[in-house]
Structures are given as structure tokens and as C-alpha cells.
């Protein structure tokens, strides 16, 4: 099986919340637990298996000025630090919305971009405006737009035109949304998944079919998604934040069942409401919501679910062939 490796740089000033979000998404911390985290010293590497054949190589770069300076120095002699900016697929830059020194933040951001232009010009840029919970609700959109237009300007100066930004906070679902689309943009076989999801949704006449990655509960793709785009079709009356909410709920559930020494669950069903969450294969969980569950025979649903499982257990073999 061919291993795809992707290198992610997680950068941002000291205390902006990089390690917190990493711990929540990838290490099953709750937002409350992140209080324990201290400052990151130098760089923490983590290799995360994602969707089986993909490895995320996450570099969590300590944000204190002394480290920042050392990353950004032009030390051609040693070359020890210069490898940071090589072969980067994705840069995730975190901004603290409450920061006192916005100009300094942006300055560092532009220095990072400059480095990246030289070493890995094809890299994708994501900026997260973090700690949004500290801003009043009615001011959030405005503030976010101002920040983004400024950052986009900076990016285009260095030739990175495709920038995506997200307002995030560890206290609500926004973090999942941001990371889902970051990781989704890196999955090479995403089209295969999309096709299968579409097909199943049509065949079973589903209201909704969402694929989740199993360890992180990030959304891989869903039936509400348009082709090749991260924009969602707005289905009438459905909660636009439902993906993130499901992620959150399921993650809480997963933490809860640790108490019974179970590391994950096989299935969770609420039959009267047509909600079925099933374990599809080693990497994927499927969330299925059935139209008109009261019209359906239970055995038929069970049979169908088994078929769906079979479909996805083959999917990875298909890819390797």
C-alpha cells in the first residue's frame, strides 16, 4: 500500500492556542483539559495516521519569539533549521484574536510566507482566527472579515492566492469545521469516497450520509456536499452546523465509554428516528439518517447497512489495486 505523507506546519505566536487545538483534534482532549498544557518548546512532531494510508506529519512549532527567530533566521551555514520550511504541503497559521500586537503577528506571518515561497511554493495556506469565543457575538463577523482581507493581501504579496480562513474556538464546533476542511483538502482519494456516498444516498433514499474519520471524528465527506467543493448544499430546515455538532457529540461519547475500557464503538442506533452510526472500516465511521424510518422494515435496514459496510471494507483494496 502506498503511503502518502503530508507535512503540516502549525504556526502562530506564543499562546495563540496551537497546541490546544492539536490536542483536542488529535489526542482526544476536552477543551477543559487544555489548561494543563504548557508552552511548546521548539518543535513537537507528531505522526498521525489518517485514513489508513495517509500519514499526517504535524509540526507544532513553539511560538515564543526566541523560537520564532531561530526558525526564521537565515542560517545557511548550519542548515539545521531550514528544513522546517521544505516540502510543506499545508501551512496552518493561528492568530489570536485578542492579541495586543497584531502588526507583529502579521509581520511574522509574512516572514513565514517568504520562507515558504522559496522552499515549498505549492503549499496551501490556512489561517485560523482563534479564540473567537472572547469576542462579542455581533462583532465576530465584522472582525473576521477585516482580519481576512488584511491577511489575504499579505498572502497575495508572496504569491499565495488561495488562502482559506476560519474563525475558530475550542469551546464550540468551529474548530472541527476548520480542521475538517483542512484535512479534507489533503485526502487524495476523496473523489472515490464522494462517489460512493452519492450512490448510497440515492440507493437507500437517505436524508443524510456523512463519513467521519474514526479517531478524530473529522468530516471526510457528506451527501450534502457539492462535487469538488467544500461548499455545502443547504438542505431545507437542516441545521447548518450539524456536522460539527455530530463530531462533538460522538467525540464526547467516545470519551465517555473509555470509562468502560472501550476505545471506540461499533454502532450506535436510534431506530425510531432513523439514525444509524456504524463502523465502516478501520478508518471510517458512517452516519446515516434515513428518510421516513417508520415506513421501513428493520431487517431491510440492517441488510442495507451490512451492504454499505461491505462496500467500504473493499474501498481501500480497490485503491491499492
Amino acid at each position, binding site marked *: 500500500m502506498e503511503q502518502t505523507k503530508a507535512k503540516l506546519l502549525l504556526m502562530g505566536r506564543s499562546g495563540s492556542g496551537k497546541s490546544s487545538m492539536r490536542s483536542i483534534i488529535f489526542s482526544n482532549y476536552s477543551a477543559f483539559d487544555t489548561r494543563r498544557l504548557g508552552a511548546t518548546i521548539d518543535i513537537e512532531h507528531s505522526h498521525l495516521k489518517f485514513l489508513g494510508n495517509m500519514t499526517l506529519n504535524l509540526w507544532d512549532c513553539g511560538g515564543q519569539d526566541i523560537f520564532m527567530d531561530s526558525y526564521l533566521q537565515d542560517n545557511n551555514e548550519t542548515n539545521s533549521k531550514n528544513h522546517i520550511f521544505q516540502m510543506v504541503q499545508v501551512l496552518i497559521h493561528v492568530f489570536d484574536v485578542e492579541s495586543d500586537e497584531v502588526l507583529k503577528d502579521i509581520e511574522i506571518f509574512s516572514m513565514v510566507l517568504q520562507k515558504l515561497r522559496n522552499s515549498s511554493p505549492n503549499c496551501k495556506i490556512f489561517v485560523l482566527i482563534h479564540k473567537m469565543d472572547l469576542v462579542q457575538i455581533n462583532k465576530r463577523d465584522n472582525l473576521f472579515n477585516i482580519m481576512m482581507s488584511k491577511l489575504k493581501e499579505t498572502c497575495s504579496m508572496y504569491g499565495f492566492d488561495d488562502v482559506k480562513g476560519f474563525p475558530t474556538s475550542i469551546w464550540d464546533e468551529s474548530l472541527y469545521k476548520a480542521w475538517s476542511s483542512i484535512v479534507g483538502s489533503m485526502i487524495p482519494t476523496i473523489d472515490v469516497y464522494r462517489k460512493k456516498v452519492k450512490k448510497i444516498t440515492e440507493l437507500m433514499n437517505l*436524508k443524510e450520509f456523512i463519513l467521519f474519520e474514526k479517531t478524530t471524528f473529522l468530516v471526510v465527506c457528506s451527501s450534502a456536499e457539492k462535487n469538488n467543493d467544500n461548499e455545502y448544499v443547504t438542505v431545507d*430546515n*437542516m*441545521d447548518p452546523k*450539524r456536522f460539527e*455538532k*455530530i463530531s462533538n*457529540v*460522538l467525540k*464526547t*461519547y467516545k470519551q*465517555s*465509554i473509555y*470509562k*468502560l*475500557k*472501550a*476505545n*471506540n*464503538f*461499533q*454502532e*450506535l*442506533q*436510534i*431506530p*425510531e*428516528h432513523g*439514525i444509524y452510526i456504524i463502523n465502516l472500516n478501520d478508518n471510517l465511521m458512517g452516519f446515516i*439518517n434515513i428518510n421516513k424510518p417508520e415506513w421501513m422494515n428493520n431487517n431491510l435496514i440492517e441488510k442495507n447497512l451490512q451492504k454499505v459496510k461491505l462496500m467500504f471494507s473493499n474501498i481501500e483494496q480497490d485503491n491499492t489495486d
Partner: protein
Amino acid sequence: MSHKDYGSVKTNNKTFQESIVKNSSNGSLNSQDSAHDLEASHNDIKNNKVLQSDDLELGLRKKILLMGLDRSGKSSISKVLFNNEHQSKNKVINLGNYVNIIENLKGKLLDLKVYEVENFDMNEILQLQQLYYNNNMVSKNINSGTEDINNMDIEDAFYKDSGFSKFFDDVGTIIYVVDSTSEYLASLANLSMLIELAYKFHKASNYTSDDFNINFEVLIHKVDSLNEDFKLDTQRDIMQRIQDELLDLGIENVAINFYLTSIFDYTIYEAFSRITQKLILELPFIENLLDNFIMNCHNSIEKIFLFDINSKIYISTDSSPVNILSYEVCSEFIDVTLDLRDLYEDENPRKYKNKPLKAYSRLNNDFSIYMNEVFKNLCVVILVNNNNSNEYANNELSNTTNSNVSNKMLMTLIDYNFNVLKGTLKKILK
């Protein structure tokens, strides 16, 4: 003291009495109860009508008073436990100038009558007593001119006549919250005065029986900020002090229980569950039923709880000891189910309301969790251990179908037994 002074006290007493009467009529009968709700808010009218038909209530006749000094954490407790209540409104009833009772919401099924008592200052009541006492002395002196007035008579008369005796009517439990992080001596003194008062009222209203049947439950609260050793020391200290006080006052036969609680973990739920269970008359029957349930399911059931969905208080469980972890998992499972259901709920709210809430989850190890709604707001949560059926299901593909089949059989069995249980519970509670 002049007569005028006494007059003002009397009017206070009158309002006190009136509001108390309002209170108790509100809680005494189920039908009256819902009638009260109906007039209370227009929004609930529909709900109540729908619910009334299949709404059963456990026979809790008694009130629960939630008391404590200011800032001891009463309101946060009731918020944590009852905030899911859709008809959440705090009704402030002014009892004279002395006691403000915030009528708290009762869990619908449990019909928990929890009243939060604010500004309950024993000194004021003692002053009132003193006033009453003096006035009677004066009036008796004037009226009869006799010298031999028995102090005890007057005291008894006070306890009998004043509106406060109604205050302790129908009270099954007094929950007293002590803030463990602050200086608690004043709070304890207040508590022992409260116990004395309740005791004397009881004695005054029925001379004969000495079965003082109000449970006192002391919540040693906010213990999350104490370390483990200090917690136990505090508990021991508080228990010792109260026992000494009661000994001094000569009060016996008072049941006082102590709980270490915090709203940041499950201790507060656990404490409230235990407190509530003491008031449920049908408890032994229900417990027996649940034991039977377990026996009839091939020993595959680890634990079974009967939950009040809104407050996550467990009303009953089987007779095996409760492991707090399994309680937590079960209560969190209810939350997960509710959250997932609510995601798609707003599309068709009426239809969803009528559907029973049922969920089932199989975990990666041998456990499964099963939940089913018995009737509105009461649900059964079962921890299933599939050990028996799991011998040949060691994650091999050919065998997964087998384990699926045996798992399905077990679920069918549980479903069947659940329906039997549901029928019986309905009979008991009617």
C-alpha cells in the same frame, strides 16, 4: 414591646400562611398540579394536554426543601439538575419579610417538589418567637392577671399557631447545603437551629408520636476545590459538630446524612438520586422488578438503571452495588441520544415528541448500552455485557456474522423483557 408591634407581625404571619397554603395546594394532587401549570403559562397548555393521558407519576407526596446560607450554592445546584426543564420559571413567593421561597420546578414524572428557600435566617424567626412570647406575656398579664404563666405553654402555642408550622407540613426532606470552602461554623449553627425548630414544630403539632420523619440531608458542597484528605477531614469535622450540637439540644431520632458534593462532577447527581429514592414508596417493588429483569436475561446484564431523563437522577437500580463510572456512562449515553435526536428534530417537532426514545450502541469491547423510554421522561438504561455470546467472535470476518446474530437475539430478548417491565411499572404506578 407594644401591641402595635405585635400587630405588624401578625399581618406578616397572615401573608405567610396564605402563600404557604397556595403552595401546598399546588403540590398535593396531580390533577390540581397540572391545572396549576395550565393557568401558569399558555405555552404549556398543549403540552400538558398531550402528556396528561399517558403521564404517570411516582407517588411522591412530600416536599423537598433546599436550604442553606446565602452563596452556599443552592441555586447552582437546582440549575444544574433542573435546567433542562422546558417550563423553567422561578416563582418567587414572598413569605412575610422573612422567607423567600423560590418555587422550583418539579421534574415532570418524578413530581419532585423541590423548593429553594432563600434568605432563611434563623435569627429572624427567633426574634419573631421572642416577640410572640413577650406579647402573650403582656396580654395574659392584662387579661387574667394571673401570675403563673407556664413558659412552655406559650412556646408550644407559638409553634402551633404561627404560620411556620405549615412550613414543615408535608416536608419529607430538608436538604441543607454547606459551603465547605468557607467558614462553615455559622452555617452549622443555623442548621442545628433549623433542626431544633423543625423538631419542636413537629412535637407541638402531634404530641403523641415521636416518629420525627423529616430526613435531613447535608450536602457538604463545593468539595471540588478541596484535596482528597481534606475532604474527609471536613466531613468528619462537620459530622462531629452537628452531633455535639444535637446532643446539647437533647434531640434524638433525627436522621442526618452527609454527602460530599460538587456540581462539576457526578457527586451531586448521586446525592440527589439517593435522597429522592428515600421518598419513593414503591422503591422495593421496582428494585425487585429490575433484579428479575436481570435474572431473565441470561446473566448478560451488568447494570440496569431507571432514569429521570430531565434531571439524570436515577430513581432506581438493581440491588448490586452502584459503580459511579457505570452511572456516568449511562447518564452520558442519554445525553448523546438526546443530542443526536435533537439535531433533526426541528423539521417535524410534533411527530418526534410522540415517538419513544430508543437507542442502542455496541462498543468495541464486550459491552453494549441499551436505552428505552418507559414513559414520558422515565427511561431504562442497561449496560449489557456480551461475554456469553462472544467466545467465537474474535474479530474474524467469518465470525462477525455469528456474533451479530447472537447479539441480535440478546437484543430481542431484552426488548421483550423491557415491554414486560414497562407494563408492570405502569400497573404499579397507577
